[in-house]
């Protein structure tokens, strides 16, 4: 399971999609010996063996030596323009940028010698010459690479007292991003993100020397769907997100790893939260799923955590208590359950594996048929980078949980509701994109039970609504489009009386008299039952429970 530390080993979950045939047997090895694929070099007297083609900076980092660098990013091409990572390489009279220097067999590198240390110190001094004294008003303060590198590698006083170069300070680059040109240290990471990650050339540098400035390409705005990644990679506060700027200081934030619930890609993210409220989402490294990036749309999914939340159980739209609500739900279900085929249990591709599994087990105890609800696909979204058309985070999970059991779709559900074949509906989540007539029919049925986090649409129509925790509030998992099961960790507490979805199902089950098989104390016990039952997931570990860490000590920013 991945966690906050980007240096963590690769996740333990299987990256093969379930049901794929095994890999074919490779042909017999050739008789000539293959060229060596690793290189051994010496850095600061310590030998290290790395794959061929690695740069010296990464080799040093694998030893725990952190050479300062601005423009280098492991997910982007090498620019070597900041000159911050200079090291001494023996037999080479000039200092080399370690990000660009590929390792060579037997190479001897020094990072602590006086010449390269002085060069890196002076490079920082040079970078700071024209840097505005903006820390008190800059969003990046506390997670700023320039602050960190200066403090750790230079920490010397200023030697000059001249007027700094002035550049425009509030430049609207696009719908999401503002540029402060004075703070920019000209590392060109943002330009490379747009070119390489988004595939659109929207940013450029103009002018030269200390007047060099970031600007948009002619006729372009910074509006590609991956534009906010530039804010993440920017080492200083030059690029700021309009959504986040001036809302919260980074040292007040805590970081919790989770999975984006915006679409079926399941980008690994970190929720940055404080005081029970999420303030932004940033991508977390996962080389198998999303690399270093995520799309802009996914970043904004935290807003709905505070919109239209269902915080108390409701009966007929009016607030009630858990005991009363589940008791009433059980009473109302007693009748339709005499013929279980008339009870529709609707799993949701928007909800976690655990919630769906719990509800599926309840349906099995009732022998009621299962249906699947999901938000409609958006073909315009699909691109060859990260975004897919399926905007539901867990369709694959629900399909795996249903397994061999028949899983009706929304059309079948609608027909059943309209014809009257279905007299009771228990549905998970707040998405039931059925027609208006069906919704009207649902409103008339007195046995429609919603287990939802938001009070929207069909939840308002439900006779009884039980509040459940949203994705950022629960320890659970979702399965992405490749069948990879990924763990989410709870960052904030659910509002009011909401509980985890599987817990709500267990309460309903206990009131309905089937509490023996549908009861769990903790999410990891749900996981245990689930992985035992769902064959492709057997043996997957629950992993560590990750608690929120103070952002500045989590090591993921700055």
């Amino acid at each position, binding site marked *: 399971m991945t966690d*906050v*530390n*980007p*240096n963590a080993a690769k996740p333990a979950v299987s990256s093969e999609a379930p049901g794929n045939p095994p890999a074919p047997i490779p042909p017999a090895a050739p008789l000539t010996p293959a060229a060596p694929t690793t290189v051994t070099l010496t850095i600061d007297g310590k030998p290290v063996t790395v794959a061929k083609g690695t740069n010296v900076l990464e080799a040093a980092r694998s030893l*725990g030596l*952190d050479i300062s660098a601005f423009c280098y990013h492991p997910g982007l091409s090498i620019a070597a323009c900041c000159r911050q990572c200079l090291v001494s390489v023996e037999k080479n009279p000039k200092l080399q940028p370690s990000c660009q220097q590929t390792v060579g067999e037997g190479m001897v590198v020094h990072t602590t010698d006086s010449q390269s240390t002085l060069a890196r110190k002076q490079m920082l001094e040079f970078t700071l010459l024209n840097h505005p004294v903006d820390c008190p008003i800059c969003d990046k303060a506390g997670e700023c690479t320039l602050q960190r590198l200066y403090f*750790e590698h230079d920490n010397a006083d200023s030697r000059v007292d001249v007027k700094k170069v002035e550049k425009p300070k509030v430049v609207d680059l696009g719908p999401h991003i503002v540029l402060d040109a004075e703070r920019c240290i000209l590392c060109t990471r943002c330009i490379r993100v747009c070119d390489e990650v988004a595939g659109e050339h929207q940013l450029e540098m103009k002018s030269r020397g200390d007047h060099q400035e970031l600007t948009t390409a002619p006729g372009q705005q910074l509006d590609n769907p991956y534009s906010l990644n530039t804010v993440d990679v920017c080492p200083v506060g030059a690029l700021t997100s309009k959504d986040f700027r001036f809302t919260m200081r980074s040292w007040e934030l805590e970081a919790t790893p989770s999975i984006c619930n915006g679409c079926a890609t399941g980008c690994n993210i970190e929720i940055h939260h404080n005081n029970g409220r999420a303030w932004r989402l940033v991508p977390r490294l996962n080389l198998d799923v999303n690399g270093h990036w995520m799309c802009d749309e996914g970043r904004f999914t935290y807003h709905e955590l505070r919109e239209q939340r269902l915080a108390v159980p409701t009966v007929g739209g009016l607030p009630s208590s858990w005991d009363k609500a589940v008791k009433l739900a059980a009473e109302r279900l007693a009748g339709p359950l005499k013929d279980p085929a008339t009870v529709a249990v609707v799993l949701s591709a928007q909800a976690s594996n655990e919630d769906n599994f719990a509800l599926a087990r309840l349906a099995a105890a009732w022998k009621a048929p299962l249906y699947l609800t999901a938000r409609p696909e958006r073909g315009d979204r699909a691109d060859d980078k990260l975004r897919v058309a399926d905007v539901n985070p867990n369709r694959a999970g629900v399909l795996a949980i249903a397994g061999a059991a028949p899983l009706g779709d929304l059309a079948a559900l609608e027909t059943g509701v309209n014809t009257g074949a279905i007299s009771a509906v228990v549905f998970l989540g707040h998405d039931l994109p059925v027609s208006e007539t069906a919704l009207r029919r649902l409103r008339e049925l007195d046995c429609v039970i919603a287990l939802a986090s938001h009070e929207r649409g069909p939840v308002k129509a439900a006779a009884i609504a039980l509040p459940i925790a949203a994705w950022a509030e629960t320890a659970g998992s979702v399965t992405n489009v490749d069948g990879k099961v990924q763990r989410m960790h709870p960052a904030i507490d659910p509002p009011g009386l909401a509980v985890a979805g599987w817990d709500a199902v267990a309460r309903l089950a206990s009131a309905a008299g089937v509490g023996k098989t549908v009861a769990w104390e903790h999410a990891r016990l749900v996981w245990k039952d689930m992985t035992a039952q769902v064959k492709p997931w057997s043996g997957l570990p629950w992993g*560590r*429970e990750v*608690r929120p*860490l103070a952002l500045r*000590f*989590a*090591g*993921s920013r700055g």
Partner: protein
Amino acid sequence: MSQKVIDALKAKFGDAIVATENQHGDDVALVKREQLLAIASFLKDDPAMLFDMPVFCTAIDLLQWRPVGDRGAPPPGSRPEYDPGEDHDGLRFEVCYQLRSLTHRHRVRIKCAVREADARVPSLAAMWPGFDWQERETFDLYGIKFDGHHDLRRIYLYDEFIGHPLRKDYPKEKRQPLVRRPDLVGDH
């Protein structure tokens, strides 16, 4: 330096001494709970040891222990991040006793690691009365029980307090229910 104290302990008690270290001039020995009383007697009575002054008794809750070096990775050589284990039965608490000898002027710290479900150690208050209240304080704030203590009850907090506040999973801002006082006259 009291390296000879550590050496004497290791020589006499063998693998009851789980680990030793010398940090910043402090000699620390992590011992097994079963031998704690024997080790304490030895430290008190042996003429070369003569640890007659109790200094302090406290506990460390390792639940959130996560050493941080550069960029979030743990620094080399530091105690690893606490792993609660599959069933949450890791060695969560370390009960620490610091002792001093007036005659020999050496100091030592004895630690004993316990699990959360079984957070009890033998009390050393009978041997060193100075630990009496300090064990009560550790019980009050951490929930460690001291077997054999003559009067183990809360000391700083009131009796109706729920929980043990210095534990890492006790939130700093947690509120306690108001304590009703039926013995007070009037409407309360």
